[in-house]
């Protein structure tokens, strides 16, 4: 086993290896929602699920990993303590990850068999000689040297800065992406440029101004003085100013007339001014571990290194020290940190890369992007209709049926075909069945996020049974579903938690349950005569907050159950013989997350051009405004309530 620990498998280690084999903890990649959508009941197999790779012993990979998530998966794998294993279910080539220790088919039976395999492997191989060190491109770092005052000066060798002569300091950056773009905080303590910094003095200074700081940790000497908290970039202007008295300016370098410090060039305070990016680079001094403890203390550093002849320590008021720091809504100036809530965060859709700038535990800014890289809709110049339908279904593993239906309808329109009304109605029922499964999937994710474990278990279990059930099976499951929804709405404190959370500005491009929960009546199904025959009526809500979205989705589940009951049968969408026709087709389908629209061109029976618009892009655009200023838990609930599918962002 590659992820084993070194040592011989004797005595106590054998006992421990057996215990490890029986106590498997899995970290699911890309996420539990994908696992549920593929029909896997992970909890039922005795595999305990871990919320963080640190507590996991197995990396469970469901289906082929998109290229964009491979790096994140290798990071997650690297962060797992040994002995660790990889379980891959139809994942294909695992590129940056090592080979899987157990593989299986993407079915429950395949999972169970693979787990049994895995337990045997671990029991025999948890300690052994098969251990190999794991390294991946995403994990590598290299040391580069930069000037504290001129962050754009970067070199691979130690030396002196060509601009000011300061000794270059080492900085750890991730290879291959250089973080040179993060301007380093200005070590604008002019003193350090000229004098060998005195660690003792700096320690003393820090001790004086920061009572709680651990003064003993000032090991790193070239950072004896800390610059201001904002990143400054040099420009060509010849103005010089005193770091502690900004009102003192001069055209020539020299000494400040108020305090005697050496004047430093004025840099424009750009957009990073308000940003605590100090941290990025202070952290870089990996070997000077204690030093980075002061990464955040940069705000009050400009006084440092005062034990140089002729310069006395100058008291800086809090106002001066925090002048350029970001201010929160209550006026306090605190330091903000950038925290990734990366692609594999439990409770959020798998594959969504969220980066939050946190001000304490409130979100100051939020940025989201899909970790799933863009996929070409048409892999060859001319795709056969069946292959096209399959590709479109593979685009979104969370709602393949809706996309199949989309492709089928567009193809039929292009070919001029019209499906029989009962086929159309059976296909609509399939789309509705998937809507129920998707909403239940979302409910299970919501349960994970808010700590309602019973909801997670029951919604996931129900979803597994419902996704492939026929009309009779669904009718049999209806009482359980309505009971679950009733119990959910009666949960104490639930509405209290969601009320007022996650309101968003009105957007024209919004569709789906999110839009309808805010009062919109747009639903692609209302124009469809098939649905009209089934007695469909648009369901809307009021409030536009997370609570309204929850109510909207549970209402849609109930509505879809009724529609399926009236349709009577379910059939997967597929096209009959298209032949060699040519034409343009266009279709719009209400996927569980909103309206998706497809336009394609058929030439000689093959699809030659296609473009698709999915509802997710509009939803992702809401995240920034929705999360800003909210507490972390509320922001996560709000983002979760949007039910974003990072897979659909690709096209």
């Amino acid at each position, binding site marked *: 086993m590659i992820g084993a620990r070194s040592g011989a498998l004797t005595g106590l280690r054998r006992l421990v290896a057996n215990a490890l084999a029986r*106590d498997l903890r899995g970290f699911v990649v890309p996420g539990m929602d994908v696992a549920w959508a593929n029909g896997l009941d992970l909890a039922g197999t005795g595999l305990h699920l871990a919320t*963080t790779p640190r507590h996991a012993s197995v990396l469970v990979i469901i289906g082929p990993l998109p290229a964009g998530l491979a790096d994140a998966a290798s990071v997650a794998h690297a962060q797992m303590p040994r002995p660790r294993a990889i379980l891959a279910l139809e994942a294909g080539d695992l590129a940056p990850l090592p080979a899987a220790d157990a593989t299986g088919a993407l079915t429950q039976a395949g999972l169970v068999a693979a787990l049994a395999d895995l337990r045997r492997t671990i029991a025999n191989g948890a300690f052994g000689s098969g251990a190999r060190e794991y390294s991946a491109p995403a994990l590598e770092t290299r040391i580069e040297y930069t000037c504290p005052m001129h962050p754009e000066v970067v070199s691979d060798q130690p030396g002196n800065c060509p601009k000011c002569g300061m000794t270059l300091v080492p900085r750890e950056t991730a290879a291959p992406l250089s973080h040179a773009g993060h301007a380093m905080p200005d070590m604008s303590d002019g003193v350090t440029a000229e004098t060998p910094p005195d660690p003792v003095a700096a320690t003393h200074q820090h001790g004086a101004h920061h009572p709680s700081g651990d003064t003993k940790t000032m090991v790193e000497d070239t950072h004896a003085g800390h610059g201001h908290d904002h990143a400054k970039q040099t420009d060509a202007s010849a103005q010089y100013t005193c770091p502690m008295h900004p009102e003192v300016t001069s055209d020539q370098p020299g000494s400040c007339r108020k305090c005697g410090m050496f004047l430093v060039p004025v840099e424009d305070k750009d957009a990073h001014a308000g940003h605590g990016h100090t941290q990025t680079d202070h952290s870089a001094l990996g070997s000077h571990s204690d030093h980075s403890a002061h990464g955040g203390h940069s705000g009050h550093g400009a006084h440092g290194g005062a034990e140089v002849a002729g310069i006395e320590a100058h008291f800086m008021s809090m106002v001066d020290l925090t002048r350029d720091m970001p201010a929160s809504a209550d006026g306090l100036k605190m330091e903000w940190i950038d925290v990734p809530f990366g692609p594999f*965060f439990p409770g959020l859709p798998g594959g969504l890369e969220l980066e939050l700038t946190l001000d304490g535990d409130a979100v100051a800014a939020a940025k989201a992007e899909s970790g799933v890289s863009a996929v070409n809709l048409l892999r060859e110049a001319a795709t056969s209709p069946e292959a096209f339908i399959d590709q479109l279904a593979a685009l979104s593993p969370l709602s393949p049926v809706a996309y199949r239906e989309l492709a089928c309808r567009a193809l039929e329109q292009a070919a001029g075909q019209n499906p029989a009304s009962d086929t159309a109605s059976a296909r609509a029922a399939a789309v509705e069945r998937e809507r129920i499964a998707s909403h239940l999937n979302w409910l299970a994710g919501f349960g994970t996020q808010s700590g309602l474990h019973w909801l997670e278990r029951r919604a996931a279990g129900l979803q597994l049974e419902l996704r492939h059930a026929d009309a009779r099976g669904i009718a049999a499951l209806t009482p359980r579903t309505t009971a679950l929804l009733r119990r959910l709405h009666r949960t104490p404190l639930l509405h209290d938690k969601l009320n007022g959370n996650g309101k968003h500005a009105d957007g024209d491009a919004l569709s789906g349950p999110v839009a309808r929960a805010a009062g919109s009546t747009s639903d692609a199904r209302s124009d469809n005569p098939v649905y009209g025959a089934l007695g469909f009526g648009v369901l809307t809500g009021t409030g536009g907050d997370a609570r309204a979205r929850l109510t909207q989705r549970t209402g849609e589940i109930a509505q879809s159950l009724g529609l399926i009951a009236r349709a009577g049968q379910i059939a997967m969408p597929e096209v009959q013989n298209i032949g060699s026709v040519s034409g343009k087709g266009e279709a719009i389908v209400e996927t569980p997350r909103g309206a998706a629209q497809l336009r394609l061109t058929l030439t000689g029976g093959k699809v030659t051009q296609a473009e698709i618009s999915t509802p997710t892009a509009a939803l992702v655009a809401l995240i920034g405004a929705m999360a800003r200023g909210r507490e972390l838990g509320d922001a996560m609930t709000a983002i979760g309530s949007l039910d974003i599918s990072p897979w659909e962002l690709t096209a």
Partner: protein
Amino acid sequence: MTVLVVLLALAAGAYLIAILESWAVHGRLEPARPAISALALLGRESVLARTPDRLFFEAGPILLLVAGLLAAAVIPLAPGLIVTDLATGALFLNAALAYVLVALIMAGWGPNGAYGMIGGWRFLGQFIAYAMLIVMPITAVAMRAESLSTVTIVQSQAALWNIAYQPLGFVLFVVAAMGLAWLPPLDLPTAPGDLAGGVEAEYTGVRLAVLRLARMVLILALAGATVTFYLGGWLGPWLPAPVWSALKILIVAGLMVSAGRLVPRVREARYLELSWKLGIPLALANIFIVGVIALVVPI
């Protein structure tokens, strides 16, 4: 000798609570699970985060264990079966439990990781919410017993258990105890949905095992405190005293561990608001009511 017996009882109790908790979480009763998990954790690597605050990182779980043990040291399991019958037992319990906060903040700060640090500071907010609601009900209990010694407090309930005498205090105390042990729905420091493990996240291997053991001991100590203060300790007919204690403590611990899972995680702002705007006035009212009753009624 008594110390040994009590410690053994503690170990057994912690094991049983671990079984109860895994039953509440996974829906399956697996008696061997805690032992297997403990062995497995021993066998996993204990990773040290880069640029940690080593002292805090190591001290967190150890301090948590010590706090739980000291709190459990003043819980009487039977007349004479107590580690130390301090004259200021209830006060000492409170003092020991105050270190839970310190331990969690150390555990959050130490690894220099975002999720952990936020978890630690959130727990401080939670502390401000629950701290008064632990102390005030204890005061009311001490008023009836005229003593801070836990043994005397139990003996004072011979006529009527405090749960009937001061039900308001009981409710406040139990909810605050759940906040102290960060049990759902007040599990803000280790919220799986918001913080992916939070304070616990950076601990792996044997350190995680110690942290989890410490938490079990803490829950046991809190259940013991609830039983001592409100449910009459070892008092009860027919069965011998230690059996009554064990039964009551396990039932209370089981309820604490499972009952909260029916409700979604309470937001920190909401918890603070409820505690201070509703909880503290109620606790003060409780003290007043108990004061009046204690003067009027002789039991």
